[in-house]
């Protein structure tokens, strides 16, 4: 498929070469690691130690400092995965399939964290670990979507076909996410169980909100760091027989 005129700029294609990505991201890693360490420790100490306790929920509300950032990234992570898959399908880029493969377990883990922390938060707040609330249910469905993509990827023995198949599934899931969310929301309002409504403090006090922002920023940095590390590991694995990886390994050993 020879193109007469390049559609995408040159840096895009440089980014698309596994070797280029590997050498480009090497200097980013210490910065990302330092930023996520500082933000996460700072945000956690601030949020857990210094932010005031909630008037109604006491100290149990502090779990939002983990719950909300992980739920944020669980959602954003699905789009990271799907967009990477779409880029791979359109421009036939090996690297973006690797990014998709790396993003899937990461997003599933974050979805699981947000479900578990939500359940732990629910016990002291609502008196039960689980209610069929619209948001909880959609998070659970999101978790299933992630599991489906991961399972499909692992079922294929051919790495390239695995990437393409998982990308198709991720894209179909993307088209469905808004529909699933709306229908679950509608289903919930139809049934309206007698349980307590989720008290998402409508106007959070800034002293509680600022540490949350720090934690969200920290989670984003950590996500980027782990995603890049995952992609690099995948690159090394797939290109293990290529000259530059062998060279890298030899230099690392000596």
């Amino acid at each position, binding site marked *: 498929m020879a193109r007469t005129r390049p559609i995408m700029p040159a840096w895009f294609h440089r980014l698309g070469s596994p070797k280029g990505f590997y050498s480009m991201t090497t200097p980013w890693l210490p910065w990302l690691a330092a930023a996520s360490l500082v933000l996460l420790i700072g945000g956690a100490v601030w949020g857990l130690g210094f932010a005031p306790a909630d008037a109604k929920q006491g100290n149990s509300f502090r779990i939002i400092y983990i719950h909300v950032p992980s739920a944020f990234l669980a959602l954003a992570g699905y789009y990271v995965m799907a967009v990477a898959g779409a880029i791979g*399908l359109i421009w036939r880029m090996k690297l973006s399939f690797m990014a998709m493969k790396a993003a899937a377990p990461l997003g599933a883990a974050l979805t699981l964290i947000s479900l578990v922390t939500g359940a732990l938060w629910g016990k002291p707040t609502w008196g039960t670990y689980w209610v069929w609330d619209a948001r909880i249910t959609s998070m659970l*469905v999101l978790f*299933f*979507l992630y*599991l*489906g*993509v991961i*399972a*499909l990827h692992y*079922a*294929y023995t*051919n790495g*390239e*076909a695995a990437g*393409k*198949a998982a990308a*198709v*599934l991720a*894209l*179909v*899931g993307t*088209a*469905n996410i808004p*529909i*699933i969310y*709306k*229908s*679950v929301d*509608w*289903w919930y309002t*139809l049934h309206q169980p007698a349980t307590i409504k989720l008290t998402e403090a409508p106007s959070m006090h800034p002293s509680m909100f600022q540490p949350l922002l720090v934690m969200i920023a920290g989670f984003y940095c950590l996500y980027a760091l782990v995603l890049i590390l995952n992609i690099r590991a995948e690159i090394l694995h797939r290109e293990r027989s290529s000259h530059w990886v062998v060279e890298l390994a030899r230099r690392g050993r000596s």
Partner: protein
Amino acid sequence: MSAPDVVPTLATGRAFRALLARDLTLAFRHRGEMANPLIFFVMVATLIPLGVTPESRQLAVLAPGVIWVMALLASLLSAESLFLADYRDGTLEQLVLSPQPLWLMVLAKITVHWLVTGLPLTLLSPLLGIMLSLPAAGFGPLMVSLALGTAALSMIGAIGAALTVAISRGGLLLSLIVMPLYMPVLIFGASAVQLAVDGMSPAGNLAVLGALLAFSCLLSPFATAGALRVSLHG
């Protein structure tokens, strides 16, 4: 979709009809296979009174949701066979290589799948309504919602079937990847029946089911065709 100018449009329409006729003939020659989802449907309906309660008032509460869940599972179980036989005997390869647009051929196969599973399930559903003491107001909406809903389920299931056709023992995986996508159809289908039973109009929900079907008709043949290409050629 190569060389559309060489192949006249009539040939495409004829190919569509030919595939439709072939798949229908094949389905009717394997009547036993065709009956399996229906038998499953009725058998699970027997399990509910045995496992929960034979008391008709409680069954009536469960009936709309239970019948819909069972129809969904029956459709899911039959989705695996959508491309499997054609994949094994090489027909699928020929379809992918043929000059006709693959999405149209896929659409023919999905249509036949609905005609031999979704439609019989819909026609059989009043029997289950009686077995599970569904109130009389629910029967009409049950059939309409199942007719629309199972068509949408066939459309969605085809994507999963195409993605897993080349994988040995892909059946369980198929359920795993398709079930989350089925959920909106289940929600609107079951609640249409529930609304009718509660004395309200199910028209809105049936309209949404129709919209879901229209949307899946637009998306699914293309996604399925793409998935088939990946499955066959990597």
